[in-house]
Structures are given as C-alpha cells and as structure tokens.
C-alpha cells in the first residue's frame, strides 16, 4: 500500500514536470539549434571585454559603496526595528501585544524585498534611500521573528537574580538577558547581512539605487562591456562581505 502511494507520488511528479514543459511550450529546439546557440554565444562573448576605463571604474566603485551602505544600514535599521518588535512578540508585554507584534512581523516578512522596494520607490522616490528602507522593512520581519525565538529560549535566571537584588527591569534586561543573547543576535544579523548584500545589488532593478540600477541601465542600453564590469563588482562585493562577516563571526559569535 505504502509502495503504491509512493509510486503514485513519483508518477505525479513526473507528470507535473512534463505538464510544465508542455504548458510553457518551451521551444528548446529553436533555442539551441537554428543558430540560436550561436546568437547566444555571440551575446555572451560581448561580456568578455569588461570596460576597465578609470571613469567607468569610478562610477562602479561609487555604485558598490552605495550598495554596501544600503545593505549595512538596512540590516542595522532592521536589527533595531526587529528588536523593538521582538520584545512584544516574545510575550514580554502580555498576549494582546504579542499577537499584534507577531502579525506585524509576519506581514513584514511575507512581502519580498523587491515588492517592498517597488512600494518604497513609489513613496520615497528613486535612489538608495528607497532601497535601504525596503531592505530594512523586510529584514525587520525576518530578524524580529528570529530574535523573538532567541528571547524565548534565553535562560531567565540571570535576569531574575538581578531583579531579586533590586535591579530595575531595564538593568535586568541589559545585564542579565542581553549578554547571553548577544552572540545569537549577532549571528542572525550577520547571516541576514550576507543575504542583504545580494539583495541590495539587485534592488536597483526597480529603481532603488546601487549597482543594480547601473546594471539595469547598461543592459537596457546594450552596453555589455560596462554591464560585465558591474557584474564583476557585484561578485567581488559579495565575496568581500562574506569574508568580513566570517571574520566577525569567528571573533564575536564563537566566544
């Protein structure tokens, strides 16, 4: 019986794959044969000569810094906003606030960054400001939920000890709960930062500044040489951020 169901599931998957190809009417034959592959190869070949003139490199450098600032500040804002929402979401201020905060976090998280960016561009105009806000809003939803879970799992004894000694609520949180929580919060934030540097470099596609916007314009103008420099800058930026966040993780998280 179990075997039969498994067989049914597998044949359903195969049917779904076949149906997808049929539905999309992918003309892979035309894509590959008929000189299609040659055309694509020619298009790809135009990326092999990146534009390395000083002027363009300077523009790309500025775009990269903008992207870096967007991702860093977006993550930082999200940390603050996420922490503010995580406190009620972990049930620190009673259940009505808890359910409201959870609903808010879910809503923030459910909307993808690119949709947020399209909305913030509408509200705040073109430019990196919109991108930063979009990243901050989505990431606040993700980090808020992770922070809330970390808060719920943090040991209560140190804070309770401070409270019993006569320390205030704030002191108990800052000196009792936070030191235990800190490495985990940092680990989550670094992980999101690594995600956000990738996202920040594509948010520009909807007009939110940074390298993405440069890539979009250069590709639209069929300037493949310039576009290929931008793509390389994106890769370098991602690698650098990954390495830097790895250093921070080694130093502060595995204490």
């Amino acid at each position, binding site marked *: 019986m179990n075997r039969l*169901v*498994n067989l049914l*599931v*597998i044949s359903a998957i195969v049917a*779904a*794959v076949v*149906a*997808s*190809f049929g*539905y*999309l009417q*992918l*003309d892979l034959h035309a*894509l590959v044969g008929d000189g299609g592959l040659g*055309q*694509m190869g020619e*298009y790809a070949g135009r990326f092999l000569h990146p534009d390395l003139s000083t002027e363009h490199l300077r523009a790309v450098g500025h775009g990269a*810094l*903008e992207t*870096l*600032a*967007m991702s*860093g*500040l977006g993550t*930082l*804002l999200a940390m603050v906003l996420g922490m503010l929402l995580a406190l009620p979401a972990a049930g620190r201020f009673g259940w009505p606030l808890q359910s409201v905060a959870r609903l808010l976090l879910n809503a923030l998280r*459910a*909307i*993808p960054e*690119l*949709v947020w960016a*399209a*909305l*913030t561009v*509408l*509200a*705040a*105009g073109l*430019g*990196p*400001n919109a*991108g*930063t*806000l979009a990243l901050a809003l989505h990431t606040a939803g993700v980090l808020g939920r992770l922070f809330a879970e970390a808060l719920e799992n943090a040991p209560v004894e140190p804070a309770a000890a401070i409270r019993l000694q*006569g320390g205030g609520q704030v002191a108990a949180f800052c000196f009792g709960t936070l030191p235990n929580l800190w490495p985990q919060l940092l680990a989550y934030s670094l992980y999101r930062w690594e995600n956000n540097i*990738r996202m920040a*470099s*594509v948010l520009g*596609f*909807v007009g939110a*500044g940074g390298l993405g916007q440069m*890539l*979009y314009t250069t*590709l639209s103008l*069929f300037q493949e040489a310039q576009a290929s420099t931008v*793509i390389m800058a*994106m*890769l370098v930026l*991602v690698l650098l951020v990954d390495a830097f966040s790895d250093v921070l993780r080694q130093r502060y998280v595995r204490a």
Partner: protein
Amino acid sequence: MLKADARDPALLPRLLFTLLALAVLWPGLQLSELNPGVLLQAENREQIANFTRAFWPPAHDAEFLQLLYTATLQTLAVATAGMALALLLAIPTSLLASRALSLRAASRSGRAGGWSRLVRMPVRGLLIFLRSVPEIVWALLFVRAVGLGPTAGVLAIAITYSGMLGKVYAEIFESVDQRPAHALMQGGSGRLAAFGYGILPSAVAELVSYTVYRWECAVRASVVMGFVGAGGLGQQIDLSMRMFAGGEVASMLLAFFGLVLLADLLSRFLRGRLA
C-alpha cells in the same frame, strides 16, 4: 551592609566601540541618503495612502481572475521546469565533483590525494560560477538574449539552481558513510555501481528533502524574477504597479501568499512521504 554599585564595569570599551561604529557608519549614511522621514511627509503619505486605499477590494472580476490563474500556473510551471533542467545538469556535475567516488581515496582509507583534488577543481569552479551570480541577474541577461517571457525564467533557475544543487549533492555524497562504496570499489565494481549501491541508499532521504526545499525556493524566485520580465505572477505585479492598479496588486499579492503557503505544505508532504 553592601552598597549598590551603579557603575558599569564595561562602560569604557562599550562607549569606544559605539563611537567607532558611528564613525564607520557616518559615510554610509551619506551614501545611502537614508531618510525614513520621507515616508511620513504629508505628500508622500498621501500618495501611499491613495495607492493602498485601492487595495480594497482586491480585483476579482472574471477576466482578471482568468489572468491571475494563468500567471500563477505559469509561475509554478517555470519553477518546476527550471528545477528539472537544473537536475539534468546538477546530477552529473555532482558525481564529477564529489570526492566520494575517488578510487584513490578508496584505497587510502578515505584520504583523497592532491591529484584527485586537482582534477575535480574545474567542475567545482564551474559550480561556484553558476551559483554566485544571483538568479535575477541571469534572468535579466536571458530576457535580453531570448526575449520576454517564461523561457528566460526557466533558464535562469536552471543555471543558478544547478550550481547550488550540484554543490550540495556532492557534499551530501561525501557526508554519508563512505565504507560501503569504498568496499565495493576495492572489490572491483565500477564507480556508478558503487554510487548506486554504496552511497545512494544512505543519501537518498537527504537528497529528496533538499531538492524539495529548493523547489519551494524556486517558486518564490520565479515570482521575483517576473519583475525583470521573466513571466508569471511577478511580471503581472510589476505591470499592475506601474498602472497604479492597487486592487490588482492586492489580489496578486494574495495569490502569491497562497502559492508560497501551498508550496510549503506540498514540500512538507513530499518530505514526509519520500524522505
């Protein structure tokens, strides 16, 4: 009687650290032109309010629902077809990249020699290249190369995900117990037979669960890729947003949530069933 000590012993380092962080962040603030206040300015608030007011009621006339239905189906089909193509590339490359099938390692109690590492380098490099460019950039490129529409999305998913799947598969092959495969290879069986009978049985659960999880990610990615013109729900969301049709955006976001939820449930079911 003990006196309460209000002094914070770690005050100085913390202050210094904060000052340093602020000094680093200041240029970033300038660069990103950060100003959350713009969201609260009366003019912009009104614009957002006008836009979001149109969200209710979500558009639900028959013609639009038909469009929504085709767009959703297209998104699902893009994710599924993209995954199928990705698997076509990922399975052979993972077999080539994985050290689990190294004959040399089999005869040296699991330690691969420098030579066998070197031979596998090009395949590993290819996988790194495939997955390090984000799928939406691939989509943007393919939209230029093959035109607007779902084909670009399928190819973008196929390329990025074959890089990710190939790498993870190769690591899964290496992480399971190597002794059965080594015994088979030393007994004189071919590499594929050693893989099929020595490694696959203990790796299959993890492989299936990771593949299904990636399919779930592909569904989300194919929505986002629509924004650069790769078909499906994303393209419709982008179009409606440009036309300031709030009601349509609202119904499509709802459809997106439904789709993500559905993919989540389906992937949980499949993992429970096959893994």
